[in-house]
């Protein structure tokens, strides 16, 4: 009887390898032995510009975290989006801009409420927090998307920030924002929507850039160290691909047999 469940052996081994790489990188960063430099992510740097623009124009910021909840497979994108929401809310409070947030899943509402309120308190503007600015529009894809679209047009938002898991509504939201003249910063790890944001938004975060957002914005050396560890994970994948190509070409199936375990 195997210790690890059938079909998951290779997955577990790879998880341990990536975990080890990330933990080593975390440890090195935490102890100050090596804190990697992280390249600029234009989309995240643009958030402050977007908030500033909204303040100057006297128009609100529209923020969404896509269609995810905390229960599904895309929760990690939603959580990354919520981290960015906290950062944006603090900037909005500091500059005096109105921030509208439209959660898709009701499970996120209490979290968002807490995050935005705490951000306003941290910025020293607790009285500026308005819970009515967090509006639940309904838990279905297109009713939600068109609710956001309608709010974008009615409020004439000056900045749209969309960070999280998106599906077909991504282009709808991005186009609506363009035609209201909003600056748009968008990010998703859903591969089938990345290109819509790249094409239609002013700044786009692609894939793991979204997941690095929390670490990037916090500037915490420990979190940044974990990004370096993740890069090693990708390097491991590249080496495995290259070795696999060579072995398969030579007729050696040891690696493909391992991945079938």
């Amino acid at each position, binding site marked *: 009887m195997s210790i690890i469940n059938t079909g998951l052996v290779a997955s577990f081994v790879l*998880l341990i390898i990536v975990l080890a790489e990330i933990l080593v990188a975390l440890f090195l960063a935490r102890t100050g032995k090596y804190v990697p430099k992280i390249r600029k992510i234009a989309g995240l740097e643009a958030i402050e510009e977007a908030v500033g623009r909204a303040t100057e124009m006297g128009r609100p910021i529209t923020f969404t975290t896509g269609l995810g909840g905390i*229960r599904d497979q895309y929760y990690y994108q939603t959580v990354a989006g*919520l981290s960015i929401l906290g950062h944006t809310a603090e900037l909005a409070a500091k500059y005096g801009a109105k921030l509208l947030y439209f959660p898709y899943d009701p499970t996120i509402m209490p979290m968002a409420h807490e995050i935005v309120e705490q951000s306003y308190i941290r910025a020293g503007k607790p009285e500026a927090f308005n819970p009515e600015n967090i509006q639940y529009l309904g838990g279905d894809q297109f009713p939600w998307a068109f609710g956001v679209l309608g709010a974008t047009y009615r409020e004439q938002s000056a900045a749209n920030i969309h960070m999280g898991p998106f599906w077909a509504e991504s282009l709808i939201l991005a186009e609506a924002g363009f035609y209201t003249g909003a600056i748009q910063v968008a990010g998703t790890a859903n591969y089938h929507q990345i290109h819509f944001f790249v094409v239609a938004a002013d700044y786009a975060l692609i894939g793991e850039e979204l997941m690095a957002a929390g670490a990037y914005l916090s500037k915490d050396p420990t979190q940044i160290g974990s990004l370096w560890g*993740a890069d090693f994970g990708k390097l491991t994948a590249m080496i495995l691909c290259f070795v696999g190509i060579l072995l398969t070409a030579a007729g050696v199936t040891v690696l493909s047999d391992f991945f079938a375990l």
Partner: protein
Amino acid sequence: MSVVVKRYIPLAITFIMGMIMVIATYFLAPGTPARDATALLTGTVDVLVATAGVLGLVVLLRHHSVNISRRGRFWQYSIITIVGVILYLIVGLYGIATHETQLMYASELFSWVYANLYVHMDMTIFSLLAFFIASAAYRAFRLRSLEASILLIVGSLMLLANAPVGAAIWEGFPDLGAWLLNVPNAAGNRAITIGIAVGAISLAIRQLLGVERGYLGPER
């Protein structure tokens, strides 16, 4: 509320629950009592999430009720929203109350409303995406740079390959489209998928260890 309650207890719960699910996924065989216990845990979370659905409904109704009472912007549409929600709820509950065999089977009225109203409304809204794609393609597909040019050319080729008109213009378009999908697209998507997966693992480890705390709100 103290920092212990607001931050450290949630972080501890996150770590413990995360480790339970990892252990269950990799080491507990399906059908064993331990695995069934974690399935019970997952089911409990489902119940909590369903409760949050009720919260969402209450918030939605409250928001629109306040809008109506204050004669806020577009308050007339708030009436339509509330009437729609309540009517469909009544139709669904009526089906449950009158159905003989099982709770989840829809009544004929519910099915009629679904098939003749909801389905068509959803299709209509989704079809608006075609117009947005047309306007986005018109304004964004410009030969600004090498990357934008590649995007434009490949996008146009795929448009022709995916519709019969492409084969009518040149019989090689469908095969070219298949090659683009199978070779360069597969390579690029493979890389993106692996990158996203590793990034997700990194984020999950940061959350489990309590290093990433942005979702709890900023620290005071």
